[in-house]
Structure formats: structure tokens, C-alpha cells
């Protein structure tokens, strides 16, 4: 630990103490201050553009610092955001609305905390919508941490006054079956019997002692399935097994990185609705008119998108104006231009 590192650590610890104890109520910038800061960020981007084209390529650390600042500042800003609702989000909302009260909805939590920022807002607004429509929720998870995320989403939903007023009872209005390993084979066996996969629920009560699921044998007693997925096992497996084999009606919420892969299933009718990334969460919150984390994060999200777009433009502008001329002969060609060579 040389001296410079020691000094840096001391500064960070001091700052955290000051912020932690010093600042009691949250900081909020007025809209004028917000627009000034936005203009400032734009100016810095312009500066980077000019210097890069001039030949000075900024180091990775400057880029990292700039991204950090540009993502944190919008937390404190007040900027109105028009959110456009895409067809796949509307179709999921309509599918839930079409369900009669007391229909049984199976919700599978197939993600872990690192993907929570995108999928947790979806879970919360989906629970709120279902409880408002008096639907019965059966919760499960194919990832070990899934059921814990479901518990957090349930607590958040119960904070809503009109849902708390319904004083929903565990085991009658909603149940959490917990995690089961085995990936897509769990879904396969649930096709013949839920009980074989979930002898007890998340708290250890046997399957048959829970009134809500006593006469639920398999998918034919379930009216709708909603799957929150961040990878494998996830929506692909639910489509391949639950939809293709047992014909369930399936809606899905996916991390943005996975969403593009789900469009073939959406078009083939195997998925009735799809929420893609934070944007999908915000659109769903708009459809169910709940202001949750999805909408709040959208401001930072937009700033982040603009920055990435700007960096691509700056990088390529510098490349075409500067580097291309200098490195005409560089051998390193990317694998993409597979020029057909003679064999």
C-alpha cells in the first residue's frame, strides 16, 4: 500500500462519513439547476469530442469517471420523461386484465440480485396489478435467490394502501413455493404434478395443507404464467417445455440483454407479452399507472444511453478523421469481413 493509495482511502472514508452523517434529508435539484447540469455534461462531451478528433485519446479512467458522474447526477434531478408504450408491453397488460378474479397466476422468479435493478420493478408492479385484480398468486423460483426476491417484491406491494386494505392471507391469496433445482426438468415434472416438485412451500408447510394449491395438480389448473428471467434456466426453457408441451399462456419479463432473443417467440404466439429491460419496466408502470423505481431510473438510463451513443460517434469520428489514415496497413482485420478466399 504505497502512500498515494493510503491517501486515497482516507479521502474516501472521510467523504462517506461526511455524507452519511452530514446530509440528513435527500438532495433534490430544481428543474433549472437540472437543465444547467445537463448542459454542463453536454459541454464536457463536446470537449472530449474536440480533443479526441485532435488526436488525444482519453484513457479508460477518464471515461469511467465521466460515466459514473453522468449516471449519478440524474438521481437528484427533476426532469419529466414522456414514456412511449410498445405493443408487447400493452399485450401483457391486456392479458392480465383479461383474467377473471380468483384466477390462479403462477409467477416464476428466475433471476438473482445482480439482475434485480431491471427485474425487481417489474415484479413489484406485476404483483400490485394482480392484487388489484384479485388474482391468486403462486410464486416459485428456478434460481436459488429467486424466492427471496419475490418476498421483497411482496413486502413492497403490501406498502400500497389499497392492497394493504385487502389484508391478503398467505396460503389463501398468495403462496411462495420456494426454489427447486433441476432447471427445465422442474417445469417438465410440474407438467404432470406440481406436488412432486414442491413437497413443501418456502416456509416448510406441506403442499396439501395450503388451501390455495390443494387442488392444483398441474398446469391445466393454472390460468396464466409470468416468468421473470435473467438467463438460464429462464423464458426459453419455459417456452420450450411449458408452452410447447403443456400449452400454458406465458408472459415474460427479461433483462434487456435477453429481450431480442424472445421476439421470435413473441411473434410465434408462444409468448403473449414481453417486458424488455428497465424500459419495459417503466412502460409497464405507466400502463398500470404506478410510479415505481422503473420510472425513477429512466432519467439516468436516458443519460447513460446518450453517453454511449456520443462515445461511439466520437470514437468513430476520431477513427475516420485521424487513425484510419495512420494505420492503413494494420494487419489486424476483424473476423467479420470473412472475405471468401480461394481454397
Amino acid at each position, binding site marked *: 500500500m504505497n502512500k498515494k493509495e493510503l491517501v486515497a482511502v482516507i479521502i474516501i472514508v472521510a467523504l462517506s462519513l461526511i455524507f452519511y452523517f452530514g446530509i440528513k434529508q435527500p438532495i433534490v435539484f430544481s428543474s433549472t439547476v437540472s437543465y444547467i447540469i445537463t448542459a454542463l455534461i453536454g459541454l464536457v462531451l463536446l470537449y472530449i469530442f474536440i480533443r479526441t478528433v485532435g488526436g488525444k485519446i482519453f484513457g479508460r479512467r477518464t471515461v*469511467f469517471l465521466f*460515466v459514473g458522474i453522468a449516471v449519478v447526477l440524474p438521481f437528484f434531478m427533476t426532469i419529466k*420523461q*414522456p414514456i412511449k408504450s*410498445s405493443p408487447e408491453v400493452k399485450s401483457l397488460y391486456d392479458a392480465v386484465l383479461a383474467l377473471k378474479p380468483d384466477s390462479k397466476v403462477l409467477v416464476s422468479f428466475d433471476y438473482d440480485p445482480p439482475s434485480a435493478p431491471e427485474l425487481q420493478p417489474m415484479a413489484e408492479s406485476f404483483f400490485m396489478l394482480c392484487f388489484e385484480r384479485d388474482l391468486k398468486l403462486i410464486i416459485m423460483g428456478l434460481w436459488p435467490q429467486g424466492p427471496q426476491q419475490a418476498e421483497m417484491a411482496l413486502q413492497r406491494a403490501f406498502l400500497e394502501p389499497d392492497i394493504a386494505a385487502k389484508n391478503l392471507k398467505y396460503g389463501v391469496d398468495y403462496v411462495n413455493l420456494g426454489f427447486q*433445482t433441476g432447471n427445465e426438468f422442474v417445469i417438465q415434472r410440474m407438467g404432470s404434478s406440481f406436488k412432486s416438485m414442491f413437497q413443501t412451500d418456502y416456509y416448510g408447510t406441506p403442499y396439501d395443507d395450503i388451501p390455495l394449491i390443494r387442488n392444483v395438480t398441474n398446469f391445466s389448473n393454472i390460468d396464466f404464467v409470468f416468468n421473470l428471467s435473467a438467463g438460464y434456466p429462464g423464458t426459453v426453457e419455459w417456452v420450450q417445455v411449458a408452452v410447447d408441451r403443456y400449452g400454458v399462456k406465458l408472459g415474460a419479463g427479461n433483462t434487456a440483454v435477453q429481450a431480442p432473443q424472445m*421476439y421470435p417467440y413473441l411473434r410465434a404466439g408462444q409468448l403473449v407479452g414481453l417486458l424488455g429491460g428497465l424500459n419495459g419496466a417503466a412502460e409497464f408502470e405507466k400502463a398500470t399507472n404506478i410510479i415505481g423505481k422503473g420510472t425513477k431510473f429512466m432519467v439516468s438510463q436516458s443519460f447513460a444511453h446518450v453517453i454511449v*451513443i456520443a462515445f*461511439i460517434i466520437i*470514437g468513430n469520428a476520431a477513427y475516420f478523421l485521424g487513425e484510419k489514415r495512420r494505420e492503413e496497413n494494420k494487419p489486424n482485420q476483424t473476423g467479420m469481413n470473412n472475405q471468401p478466399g480461394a481454397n
Partner: protein
Amino acid sequence: MKKQVPLTITFIVGVVLILSVFFPPVETWGEDFSLFFDIIAVFAFFLGGGNLIRVHTERIAKKKKDWGFSIITILGFLIMLAAGLFKLWNPGDISADVAATGSLFQLLYDWMFNPLGATMYSLLAFYVASASYRAFRAKNRDATILLIAAFIILLGRTPLGMYATGWIPESFSVLQIPNLAIWVMTSPNLAGQRAIMIGIALGVVAMSLRLILGVERTYLGMDID
């Protein structure tokens, strides 16, 4: 003995599973075989865990660079094992749920495992930005198409896209960036995904057949003898 038995095992198990799909009475064999894999994987964990401890104890013994951190890795591994396997500091007894609230296992998960994993995952945002600035160049036609498509999607998913192209008349509404982004998602992206999916599936079919027929046996560590 060494070479023929593994190959026959692979062949028999492979063929049985392929045909089991067509005969309802044996339809569930695929599920049962997967159970065997999960159990085998647990035993293999002993090898992995054992190797982890051996590598780090060796680093400590030989005082290699950063050996101090190896102690921490081993301590972390052992504490997690103690909290998980023997449920030490767990409010319930041995039969309680391993991640019962308040148990050390759950605390280690919430206070260390979760923030470390989530932060490591979030580093990607910094890397994507720096890669956009330094690595993603439109060096050739293919790269240019890739970046233009990325542009349309990124712009289409932010309000900026709406401001920029709101003025395009309704009749050509598909050219407004948000609609264009949706069109790119539902048409060319769909075609590309489908071509890749079909390609991969046929690649898997050919690869699986090579493995089952024993044409491909490198995984057994024996070259074509």
C-alpha cells in the same frame, strides 16, 4: 477396457435418450438421467473445492506474490462451508433451512456475496462505455451495419429519439425512431435470430451425433488412436 467402455456408455445412453422422446412409456427417462448428472456434479465439487484449497495453501506455503490474500480466500471458503453445511450460527438447528433469516449463511450472502456479485456485474456498464469509445470501430461494412442498428435501438429506447424524429408525418410513422426501433426488433432482428437458432440447433445435432457415434472423442482425453 479404457477406451471401449466409455464410448459404448456414451453411445447407449445417447441413443436411448433420443428414442425415449418417441415412446411415451420411457418419455421421462430424460428427466431421470438429468438427476444422475446433478449428483455426479456434487461429487465433482469435492475435486474443485479440494483443488481450490490446494492451490491457495501452496501459494501461502511458498510465499508467492499476494499470498496474504490466499489466506482470506480459504477463510472465506471455510466459513461459508461451516455456515452452510453445518449451519453454525443458524437460529434453527441442523434441520433448519440453510438460508433462514438471521443465519450467518444468509448474512454472508446479503452483506458480501450479493454486493460483490452485483458490483462486479455493474462494472460492465463502465466497460461498455470505454469499449464504445476505444474498441467499437466501423472498420468494415459489417461493423458499420452493427453500429447503425445499435444506434437505432439505443435512440429508439430513449425519449431523445422521440424528440429528434417526432416531426415525421404520421403516414411514414415507421420512420420515427421509436417505431423504427420496434420494426428493427420485430423484423430483421427476428430473421437473424431465427437463422442463428436454426444454425445452432443443426450444429448441436451434428455435434451430438459425432459424440454419440464416437467420431469425436477428445473430451475423453484420447486422440484418434
